[in-house]
């Protein structure tokens, strides 16, 4: 049966066909849809974990107990999960385990461009890299077999284009793999030094066997077109290179990339006059070829950029110096269109007020709310990684205090980020008596990655089954916070008063803004608690509007100035009646549409 699948859909399909029993993940672009698709397969237990470390640890336990398991995450998520990963490689598996890292050359939706192929090398684990959706499915199935055969977890390395591109995939049926029996074995699972030292030595044996496998697996292959020029590549770069070179070069197409098949690489390069090493980000294949003695004929990072994607246009330009002909025209009227907080976004009211404050450093985090850094809010100073807002804000506040500076710190993160790693950061603030204002923007869902459930949303990963709803205010109280206020962020007066209150305190405070994301599919609980949300539209009374543009400072994409009458107008297709602009208008010219 043929299906048109994204790489992520194909990975889920492959895992299902391979009989996987357990899947855990934390959402992150471009990996999110892997677990989302797993939830559609009823035979598999699938869950969202609070963070990537927890997801991998859960998958490790499932493997030890004898189930085939997987954990998927974006590249920076593997940093969070790195601690269990490195030791898990020593222990090995019972049921096969595949760890998926979705890297982001080009940083379409990420704070950095780290190359996680380095993790496979550092952790000493086998790695596979599919080039197409078909390979994503096939390699996923193969990866489970490798994991069990060599008693080691496998790293599946994807990139954004491989994750989010669709291709035709020949699908099969699920192969039911029985859950293996669990045997207590402290020499395998207990990692006190005396045991772990033995595991370390054993790991070298496994790697030697994996090297033999690398030389013979069909995942690595030579395409000999009888030419004097060769291309060495893996993953999506193979497709980009094929687009440019077609059959005019020989290819070494690598799908199993740690350990690398050195004999095959030697055989491929011998006799060639020139070898293009086409790999995004770090020169890993290039360094391997240099070590094998082919420095004189390889064109790697001296020809191709060390950053961004190596799409066919980039390769073409680097190799031939030319790009395809295109239309030449004037770009002066093209206005940038950066992403913006949605019309009705409950973060808007909070940042509208926060942005007005002077002598405040806003310590930010990872989420839709990071968009508050830009105009018109200009309400964020920094963001580093998940959960860093509270802890970095705390560090800054201590230095401002030491320096006698009037600067205060307001730290902001979302509900899902709070559960991910914000709770430990809040413990830091409370325990060390930080003068920071820690704000949790609770929109009752994981927003930025497209509405995944989290421990606060009241539903399991399938979006249907009820779950215990962890109460953020109670958690903060249990962590020792004394000054806590929960507010409606669409009420500007209340937001202002609450910020005044928090900034008047000389000790830690917590503000929780609670209002569901405008795009969220409301649960029964949302409907009961927010019965009026997003049910109206605003409209401008043109007789009252003086064209002062104050409302436009809300940064709402549904508001604009009419070209002809120079007065504000509301786009009825976008407006959901949050009412923030009504409160900003000094002439009371914006009100609810009456039917």
């Amino acid at each position: 049966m043929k299906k048109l699948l994204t790489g992520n859909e194909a990975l889920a399909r492959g895992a299902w066909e391979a009989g996987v029993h357990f899947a855990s993940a934390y959402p992150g672009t471009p990996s999110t849809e892997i677990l989302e698709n797993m939830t559609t397969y009823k035979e598999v237990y699938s869950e969202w974990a609070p963070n990537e470390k927890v997801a991998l640890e859960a998958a490790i336990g499932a493997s030890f107990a004898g189930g085939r398991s997987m954990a998927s995450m974006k590249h920076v998520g593997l940093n969070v999960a790195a601690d269990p990963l490195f030791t898990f490689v020593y222990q090995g598996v019972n049921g096969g385990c595949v760890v998926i890292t979705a890297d982001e050359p080009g940083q379409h939706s990420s704070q950095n461009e780290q190359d996680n192929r380095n993790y496979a090398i550092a952790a000493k684990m086998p790695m596979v890299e599919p080039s197409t959706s078909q390979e994503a499915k096939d390699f996923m199935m193969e990866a489970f077999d490798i994991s069990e055969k060599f008693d080691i977890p496998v790293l599946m390395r994807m990139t954004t284009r491989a994750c989010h591109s669709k291709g035709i995939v020949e699908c099969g049926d699920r192969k039911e793999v029985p859950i293996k029996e669990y045997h207590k074995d402290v020499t395998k699972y207990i990692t006190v030094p005396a045991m772990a030292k033995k595991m370390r030595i054993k790991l070298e044996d496994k790697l030697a066997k994996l090297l033999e496998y690398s030389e013979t697996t069909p995942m690595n292959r030579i395409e000999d077109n009888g030419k004097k020029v060769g291309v060495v590549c893996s993953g999506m770069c193979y497709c980009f290179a094929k687009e440019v070179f077609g059959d005019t070069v020989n290819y070494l197409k690598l799908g199993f990339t740690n350990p690398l098949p050195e004999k095959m690489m030697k055989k491929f390069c011998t006799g060639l006059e020139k070898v293009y090493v086409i790999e995004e980000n770090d020169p890993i294949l290039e360094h391997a070829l240099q070590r094998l003695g082919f420095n004189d004929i390889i064109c790697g990072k001296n020809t191709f950029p060390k950053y961004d994607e190596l799409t066919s246009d980039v390769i073409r330009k680097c190799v031939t110096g030319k790009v395809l002909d295109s239309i030449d025209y004037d770009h002066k009227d093209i206005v940038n269109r950066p992403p913006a907080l949605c019309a009705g976004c409950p973060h808007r009211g909070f940042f509208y007020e926060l942005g007005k404050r002077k002598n405040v450093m806003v310590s930010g985090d990872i989420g839709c709310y990071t968009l508050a850094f830009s105009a018109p809010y200009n309400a964020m100073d920094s963001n580093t990684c998940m959960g860093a807002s509270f802890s970095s804000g705390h560090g800054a506040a201590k230095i401002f205090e030491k320096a006698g500076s009037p600067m205060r710190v307001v730290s902001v993160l979302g509900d899902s980020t709070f559960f991910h790693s914000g709770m430990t950061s809040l413990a830091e603030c409370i325990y060390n008596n930080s003068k920071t204002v820690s704000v949790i923007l609770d929109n009752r869902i994981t927003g930025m990655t497209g509405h995944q459930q989290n421990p606060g949303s009241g539903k399991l990963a399938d979006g249907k089954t009820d779950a215990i709803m962890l109460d953020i205010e109670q958690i903060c109280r249990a962590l020792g916070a004394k000054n806590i206020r929960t507010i409606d962020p669409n009420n500007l007066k209340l937001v202002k008063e609450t910020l005044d209150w928090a900034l008047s305190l000389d000790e830690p405070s917590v503000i929780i803004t609670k209002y569901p994301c405008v795009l969220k599919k409301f649960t029964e609980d949302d409907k009961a608690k927010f019965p009026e949300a997003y049910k109206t539209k605003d409209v401008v009374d043109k007789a009252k509007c003086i064209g002062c543009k104050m409302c436009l400072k809300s940064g709402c994409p549904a508001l604009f100035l009419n070209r002809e009458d120079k007065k504000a107008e509301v786009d009825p297709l976008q407006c959901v009646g949050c009412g923030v602009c009504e409160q900003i208008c000094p002439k009371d010219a914006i009100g609810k549409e009456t039917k």
Partner: protein
Amino acid sequence: METKSVLLVGVGGQGTILASKLLTLGLMEEGYDVKMSEIHGMSQRGGSVSSQVRFGDKVWSPVIEKGSADLIVSFEKMEALRWLEYLKPDGKVVVNNHEMMPMPVIMGDAEYAADIIDQIKKVCKDVTVVNATEEAMKLGNGKTQNIVLLGTLIKAMNLGDINWENIIKANVKPNFVDDNLKAVKVGMSLV
């Protein structure tokens, strides 16, 4: 057959993803090799977005190079101008006569030029301007503008022989099937 490239561009939230999904499914049914690439995520909402569709006997890269699109379908005027460099010098453009103000325009830092369509027509011979948003509103559901534009695309690429009715019925939520069937027909009549 040589690989054909279709670029669907617009503003995040306008429905380019569903339109391109239906397109690729139709192309697969017809027996083509198909690849599609898109950069998505909630954080793209309100931003400039694109879905790239390529089909033929054998497709390698899912990504369209500058100067290689046979057709650009733009859900918004400014986006057509932005992505025009991806068009083949003799390629076609279908543009929805609809403006969405980018944030710098809303904030008064930039102006939305009134003659965008004229600027496109000046450098490109084959331009079709459609009022897809208006037509969708007339059908009673402004959100079906994406399917109106899909209809126009089908006509512009001569893909009318594919059974689009079946594709829509099998892939759109039951409540929206009727609206979308009407929308695709209207779209096809606009070229």
